[in-house]
Every structure is written in structure tokens, then in C-alpha cells.
């Protein structure tokens, strides 16, 4: 072997010109499209001074919007987490008719516009809707109240946890659960001491994404909440309201809160990915058995 450095021929699509152009293009577009607007938010939030910023944040309507957003997340995220685990468990550990169909159903909220979901809820729970009159007679208020907001948020974020868990649990197979059961463990015991520890990072990852989306959801919630200031306004709706009121600095201040939440989410996501959650760290399937050595006819 000679130690003389030599120019290596480019690998596929790997000539220096192509490489530099691609990297530059992605960096520029990324900066313009994603990074710049975020920086603008933080900049604008404080543009009218720290006073306006704190005034907006401490404004009762804003505080109520924050509170409503947090409450919505506190209800919607745990329910969707439970749903996601149950769905992933059912799909990966049981054989039943309609498994594929269930997978498709779970994915629907990803492909449908949130506003469609909102309108659909309007038709189901609204006064002209299916259950509206009955609910109204019973004195239960779903639309233009917290239940409607929670339902709409849950619809939009239903797939997040399940989508993270299904591929992982599929790759892990059923052996571990079967082993635990054959050793005498009950279903709950198997879940908590065998299944859960092996999916915990993916689960947390799904929960973080679900939470980010619940807090940021606009379209579906704006239809069902009625946008009543100080009553049914979540943080994203409140931002829009401020903006339409020509309170630009206030809108940006409120937006900066959501942005901070997003940054926390991203940091959590990166940390979780290091632990093997998300798509990057999927464990490989167990090694296949060697080819069968057996008698053959000559």
C-alpha cells in the first residue's frame, strides 16, 4: 500500500460542484424559509420595548389563552397517548380482520385539512347537527367551549403516538411478550415491565410531537371554539386576534411564547433521538437464521 494521497473519483452524484451547489441551496432556502421568520418573531416581540411585551403576556386575555392551551394539552395529550399505545398494541400484537384498515384510519388526520375536521365536528355537535339538540337539551356544551376544542385537537393529533410506536413494535415482534407470558407474567405486568421499557423513547418522542401540535393547532380549533376572547381563545387563536386588532407587537409577543414551546420541543426531540427514538435509531431486526442444512437429492 502506498501512502501517497490520491484523488479519489467521485461517488455517485458526488462531484464537488454538485455537492457544493446542493448544500448551499438547502442552506439558503432553509435560512430564508424557516430560520428568518422565527428570528423575526423574537425580534418583533420586543420591538416596542419590554414593557409592551410584558403587558401582552400579563394581559388577562392572553393569560387565559395560555391557560386554555395548557389545559387542552393536558387533556388531549394523555388521551391520545393512551389511544396511540392501544392502537399500536392492537395492530402489532394481534391478528384481526381490518388491521390494515385501522392503520389507514389512524393516518386520516395527517392527510385531511384540520379545518375540514373542525367543520365536521360542527355538523356532529352543532345545533343543526346530529347530537347538537340532544346535548343542548341535556345542558352539555361541546361547541364553543373546552370540550369542542379538546375534541378538535385530539382529532388532529390522533396519529402522532401510534405512528411512532407501530414501526418500532412491528420490528420488535411478539417474542418478548410471549416470553414474559410463558414465564407467568400477567398482561399488565408484561406491558409495564417488558413492552413499555422497550418503547419508552419512541413513546416520549410521539408524546412530544403530539403536544407541540396540540398547542399549535389553529384550523380545527378556530372552527369549533367560536373565538370568544377571554373564553374560548387558545394561544394560536389569540395571536390571530391580536394581529387583526393591529396589536402587532402583542401578536408577536404571544407568538414568541409558542415559538419557545416549539424550541423546547425540538430540543426534547433531539435528546430523545439520541436515545434511539424516532426514525434514526430504529433497531435492526434480529439476524435471519442461516440457511437450512439438510439432505438433498443428488
Amino acid at each position, binding site marked *: 500500500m502506498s501512502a501517497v494521497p490520491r484523488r479519489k473519483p467521485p461517488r455517485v452524484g458526488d462531484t464537488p460542484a454538485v455537492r457544493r451547489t446542493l448544500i448551499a441551496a438547502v442552506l439558503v432556502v432553509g435560512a430564508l424559509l424557516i430560520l428568518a421568520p422565527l428570528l423575526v418573531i423574537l425580534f418583533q416581540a420586543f420591538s416596542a420595548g419590554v414593557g409592551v411585551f410584558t403587558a401582552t403576556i400579563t394581559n388577562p386575555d392572553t393569560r387565559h389563552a395560555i391557560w386554555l392551551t395548557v389545559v387542552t394539552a393536558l387533556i388531549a395529550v394523555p388521551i391520545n397517548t393512551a389511544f396511540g399505545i392501544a392502537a399500536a398494541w392492537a395492530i402489532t400484537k394481534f391478528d384481526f380482520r381490518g388491521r390494515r384498515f385501522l392503520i389507514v384510519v389512524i393516518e386520516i388526520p395527517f392527510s385531511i385539512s384540520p379545518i375540514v375536521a373542525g367543520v365536521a365536528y360542527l355538523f356532529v355537535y352543532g345545533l343543526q347537527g346530529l347530537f347538537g339538540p340532544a346535548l343542548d337539551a341535556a345542558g352539555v356544551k361541546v361547541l364553543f367551549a373546552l370540550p369542542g376544542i379538546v375534541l378538535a385537537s385530539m382529532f388532529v393529533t390522533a396519529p402522532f403516538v401510534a405512528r411512532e410506536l407501530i414501526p418500532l413494535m412491528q420490528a420488535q415482534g411478539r417474542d*418478548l411478550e410471549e416470553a*414474559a407470558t410463558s414465564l407467568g407474567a*400477567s398482561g399488565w405486568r408484561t406491558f409495564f415491565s417488558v413492552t413499555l421499557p422497550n418503547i419508552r423513547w419512541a413513546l416520549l418522542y410521539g408524546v412530544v410531537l403530539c403536544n407541540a401540535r396540540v398547542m399549535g393547532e389553529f384550523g380545527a380549533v378556530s372552527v369549533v371554539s367560536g373565538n370568544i376572547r377571554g373564553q374560548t381563545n387558545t394561544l394560536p387563536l389569540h395571536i390571530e386576534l391580536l394581529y387583526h386588532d393591529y396589536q402587532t407587537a402583542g401578536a408577536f409577543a404571544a407568538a414568541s411564547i409558542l415559538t419557545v414551546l416549539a424550541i423546547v420541543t425540538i430540543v426534547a426531540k433531539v435528546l430523545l433521538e439520541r436515545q434511539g427514538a424516532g426514525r434514526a435509531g430504529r433497531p435492526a431486526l434480529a439476524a435471519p437464521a442461516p440457511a437450512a442444512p439438510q439432505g438433498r*437429492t*443428488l
Partner: protein
Amino acid sequence: MKIRLDNVVKTFETFRAVRGVSLDIESGELVALLGPSGSGKTTILRMVAGLEYADGGHIFFGEQDATDIPVRDRGVGFVFQHYALFPHMTVAENVAFGMKVSKVKRTKDEVAARVAELLRLVKLDGLGNRFPNQISGGQRQRVALARALAVDPKVLLLDEPFGALDANVRRDLRRWLREIHEELGITTLFVTHDQEEALDLADRVVILDQGEIVQAGTPEDVCRNPNSAFVMNFLGDANRLGATVANGKAELGGVELEAQSFGDGPASVYLRPRDLDWSASGPGIAATVTRVIDRPDGRRILARTAAGEQIELDVAPETMARAGDQGFVRVHRARVFAGSASQ
């Protein structure tokens, strides 16, 4: 614990995986279920474990009908092909798992003492604090066995226990499993597609094909008296030549073989390469050498008979033969089965 399968049937959607299998396993016996993939051997094992329910028939543990007892209460130790060790638990925690979830309460010290004892049994003392991904495949398989033994199972079931290991480790573990079995005397049923493994390890070999038992017997039985072309073929290399039976004799390219129990008509003759010899002079099946392969323990001659059929023979290292040589294949032993060779 004696195990009895009585006409057990299992169908997956439209695939009939197991078609009426009846089998008695004596207490303390070590039995191999041997068959090609798709023969239903793993399904049978999983039904004995309770990981699958039988669609028909009964499974008895001793006198008790265990057919509908769920796996959790069946009291079996199951060793999975890919070990299925809990990756987030140490080796010791894996072994202790069954005792911790058991209805029989044990103190921490009792569990620890039993874990240490089991790890000594499987020769893994001192590795208790490692995680499964920090030990080798052979060690993992031994942990899986210790974990299964920890719950004092009535029956030990192993699914392709050495399938994922390389050849040397496999041979060692096989002998070692036999020793453990002799020490503990626990009724053991294992599944394999490797005939050498089955013959090496088992008291009795049950050969399966397409969901049915083809032959069951001691290794000596099935090797010396294979009852069908399938068994003959599956247990080891075999040449298959077409022959014609007439008057209790099978005629095969100039050689006559005893075939008393056969009616006149076409038949297949199966010959193991080691039961054949090469000679420059007759009597024998006239053939031409096409290739010679040298091996540490002898030579394998590939030849073509006058009838145009391929034949392989294992001969002593000093046998003289070269490609193109003409000579005769001497037959020391052969088995005749009814039916033409083309099937």
C-alpha cells in the same frame, strides 16, 4: 411430566399447518421435532406451550387436559429461536423475571440464590450484571435456557435453539444441552430443521412433513429403517435412481437388488454416497466419472451412469479416479421405494 398429543389440528386462515398429529412423549424424554420449513413443527411446539390454541384435538400434560390452559398457567419453559431476552434487564434480572412474577412468593435472597445457582448451571457465573447485548449469541441462548428453567417448568420447549448460532458454538451447546437434560431429567421437546442436530441430541426423533408425522423413532431407527423416500432424503445426502421391479428384484443398470415386498413396476432406489464404491472392473453400475472432489476424509466422485443419471459416491482417499474414467459403481447398501424417480 408425560405429554400426549391426541389428533391435534391447526389451521391458519386457509393453510393447514398441522393435520391430525398424535404423539406420546414419555416423562424425562428428549424429543426432536424435525422437518423442513412449513412442516408444522414450530406450530406443534407452540401449541404444546399454549402460545397457539389447537383448532382440534387434545394436549395432555400427564393426566390433565391442558388443551385450553393459557400459556401463563401451563408451566412450560419456552426458549425462543432469537432468545427473546429482555434487552433492558441484566442477565440476572432476566433469569429472575419468572420468579418475580410468580404467584409463589419468594424473598429477595431466595431469588438471588436461585439465580446464582441457575447461572452456575449454564456456566455463566459472574455475568449476571451484563446486559444481553454485551454477551455472545451462545451465552444469550444459555441465559434464555436459565430463564426458562427458573420457573421449574414441567416441560422444556425449545424452538430452533441453535438456529442463529455458528457451527462450532452450535455443536458445543448441543452436547451441553444433552448434559443439562441428563442432570435435570426434565421432559424436553425441541424443534429443528437440522437432521444432524436432531440425531445428535434426541432420544427420539419425530420427522414431520406438511403437517403430518412421517416417522418417529430413535435416531438408530430412523437412520437404519427410513420408512419413506422423504425420510431417506431428509436425513442425509442420497442418490436417487430409477429402477424397474420384476419378480421381487429391482434391476438397476446391471445390478439386481432385493425388492421382495414390491409389486412389479417402476421404483426408486436411494443410495447414500458412503454406501457406494468405485471400481475399474465390474460387477456394478457402469458409469463415467465427471468430476472428483477431494475432502479431508475422502474423495467424492461425481459420475454419470450409462442411463444418463447423476450419481455421487464417497470413497476412500486412496481410490484412483479422474474425470473421464470409465468404471463401475459397487453398491453395498440401497433402499428401494415404490414409485418412479421423477416424482
